[in-house]
């Protein structure tokens, strides 16, 4: 299993522990990640200019195609936007023509389709829940995990084709495979609020608090995330709240790659668990 590794822009500076844990987990599961010099997926530009955002995505398709590899990304916003660009190219000949012209100007060309995978899909389909169960040397028995899906992979379902957009199961299946108990909580498909950071911090924070309160009320020990932005919201942004704020006491957000890594028996430093700002008490697990 060999993929072009697409970490996205935020991991290197803002969330290095995600990159670290993804690399460690994939190495342990024999998923080979090839680093290529990708550009931005284009999602952050979509607020400003759709064509720029689609062109950025397509350039990445060209880079992956040249290497002959499918794209593997741990970020749901990157995943969602790459899929969006793919669908826009297919449905709108006008945009496709503009993109081809831009590519030609930069001396590039684009021929075949690029396979785009989110990490959860790779874990589910390539590794497989059963296989994961067998390899879990230290299963997370008794840990109650609230899975946070992340909007941009789920919706619009007809664009992303990630899972059932109204009743997805992939995240829970993987968590159960590593021995954790999963919770059926109301807000698992709701937005984390991060996309509004810097644009409307009041609503962004309100969305975060609502979500954290929901996870706490469901009795979760851990809020599992599988997206760079969701984790930034539930870890970094939450850590900016004043000491003693109730939201700080809500279940800590832990990255799916860290949870799987712990179950596989990897070293917690290797998984960047000491990088999480809201510490997971279970990190000594």
């Amino acid at each position: 299993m060999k993929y072009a590794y697409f970490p996205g822009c935020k991991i290197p500076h803002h969330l290095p522990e995600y990159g670290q844990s993804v690399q460690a987990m994939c190495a342990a599961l024999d998923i080979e990640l090839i680093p290529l010099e990708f550009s931005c997926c284009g999602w952050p530009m979509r607020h400003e200019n759709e064509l720029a955002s689609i062109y950025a995505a397509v350039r990445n398709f060209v880079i992956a195609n040249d290497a002959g590899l499918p794209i593997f990304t741990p970020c749901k916003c990157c995943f969602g936007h790459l899929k969006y660009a793919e669908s826009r190219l297919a449905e709108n000949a006008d945009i496709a023509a503009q993109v081809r012209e831009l590519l030609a100007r930069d001396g590039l060309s684009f021929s075949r389709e690029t396979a785009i995978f989110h990490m959860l899909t790779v874990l589910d389909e390539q590794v497989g829940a059963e296989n994961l169960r067998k390899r879990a040397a230290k299963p997370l028995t008794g840990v109650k995990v609230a899975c946070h899906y992340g909007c941009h992979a789920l919706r619009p379902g007809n664009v992303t084709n990630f899972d059932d957009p109204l009743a997805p199961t992939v995240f829970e299946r993987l968590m159960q495979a590593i021995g954790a108990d999963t919770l059926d909580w109301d807000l698992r498909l709701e937005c984390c609020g991060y996309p509004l950071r810097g644009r409307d911090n009041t609503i962004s924070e309100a969305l975060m608090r609502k979500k954290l309160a929901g996870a706490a009320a469901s009795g979760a020990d851990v809020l599992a995330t599988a997206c760079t932005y969701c984790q930034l919201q539930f870890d970094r942004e939450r850590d900016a709240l004043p000491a003693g704020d109730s939201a700080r006491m809500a279940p800590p957000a832990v990255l799916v790659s860290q949870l799987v890594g712990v179950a596989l028996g990897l070293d917690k430093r290797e998984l960047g668990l000491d990088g999480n700002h809201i510490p997971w008490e279970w990190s000594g697990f």
Partner: protein
Amino acid sequence: MTFFDIGLSVALVICVAGVGFRVARWRGKWASPESSSASQWCFGVASLKALVLDVLLLARTGRTSAFRWLAHALVFFGFMGLLLFHALDETVTAFFFPAYESTLDPWQFLRNLLGLMTLVGLALMAFRRLWEKRLRDLTRFQDWAALLVIGGIILSGFFLEASKIISPAVFDRMVEAYFIPETDRDVTALKAFWSHEYGVVFSVPYPSDAETLGFGASLNEDSCVDCHADTGTAFVSRSLATALGPVAFAMNTSRADQVFWYLHVLCCFVALAAIPFGKFFHPVTTPVNLVVRQGRRDDPEDMLPSDGGRGMGMDACTRCGECSVHCSVAPAFSVLGNAMILPSEKLMALRQIHAGASLSEATLTAFSEGSRLCTECLRCTEICPAGINLQDLWIASKAQLVSQAPSPNDLMRNKTPSQRARVFDDLCASSVVPAVTGLADDSTSYWACVQCTTCTSVCPVVAVSENPSGDLDLLPQQIMNLLRMGLKEETLGARMVWSCTTCYKCQEHCPQNIRVADVLYELRNTVAARIRDGGVRCSKKGESQ
């Protein structure tokens, strides 16, 4: 005072004054949060390592591109060698080698080698700037000026040496000063030898029989070799002299050796005086920045008091353009054409902002867009061969910009409710502004909308608001309704458009398959496009009327 002394003094004064001015400007206008007064100017092992690896061996340059390392190393080692052992020969070379004469080997040979290395390096640099499309677009006058001035020094040096090789006037001067002929035959024989062996071009031909040349060789052995190696070891200049054969006579009569001496010295003075300007400054600042900061990204405020570390960092930019070649959001530059999306260009404007200069509204708007599009992916910072903490500069400047050049989001959000209602007046569409056309302009996009309010009822933003119509102005289904009626302008200022979290629940749940979230994205694009293309603000329209 001679021409040389006057020129050198003027160039030195400009250089020293200019460097002083630029260093003084390192203290920026940004307030440093939690700035510590203790500056950490300690020269430790890390500094020494940076000095050897990054400054002397150009290790940071080599990390991104072997080609650029080769080009830069050729120029760096070539030019530094010439500077120390040729320009400063009386101080440096003569100090280490008391028997030094510039026309003896190995010096004569090394001078040619170092000059050739520099020229090849400069050619590679020019090639890179022309070959790499993005770099070609970004290259400015100062980039070519730096290549031309350094190239001018080397080329004029080679021409100077070549014109001296062929010059009978220079030969005669030396003979007069250092050769005591016993008979006229002595001078003839020596001239014959130098003409045939060392390339001097006399106005009349000298005999080339073996006897005369043999005698000339022995005279040369007795009187010249102590100070003169075979001009053949000056392999570039001698080849150049041979190539100049057809015009040698004209050059000699017009004393080309003196012309090229003035040209060579003048080029050197120009380079010296140019040091405080543009990228000519980087041979000073880049090593300082590398040694002081070693490319570290921690605690920029601690490096120098009063934000000096940032100012120094910005001056260390060599305009090599590696950051812009590898920039993650460069595709946006390809589409929007705003060069300030690229780090190297943004840095130039940032340096002015940091120094307190006021930029034009158009520049600020472009800078603000570049700043917003930056994803802080760290790539430019990791690549920068000068070790500039670009990441810190981007993050710090974003905070500074909010008030100076508001984003479309801030612009819309900062309006009072009545202003927002008139937003279509304020940001008036103009025929010169290419309108963003798409779903929102096509009322058939909403034909199927039955105003069932599903979009609004599933919206998490509406759900967390205690007073949705107050906080958000319009609810999703109301926006769809206005668009259906062709009232797009009335929706642009609605806070719902700007506070959409893009979670796509509305679109996913819409029973009529209306692309609610895609439309909201598109409305933001519309405002961004109008601001980008000059805004066509009503205030301006008012003035013109």
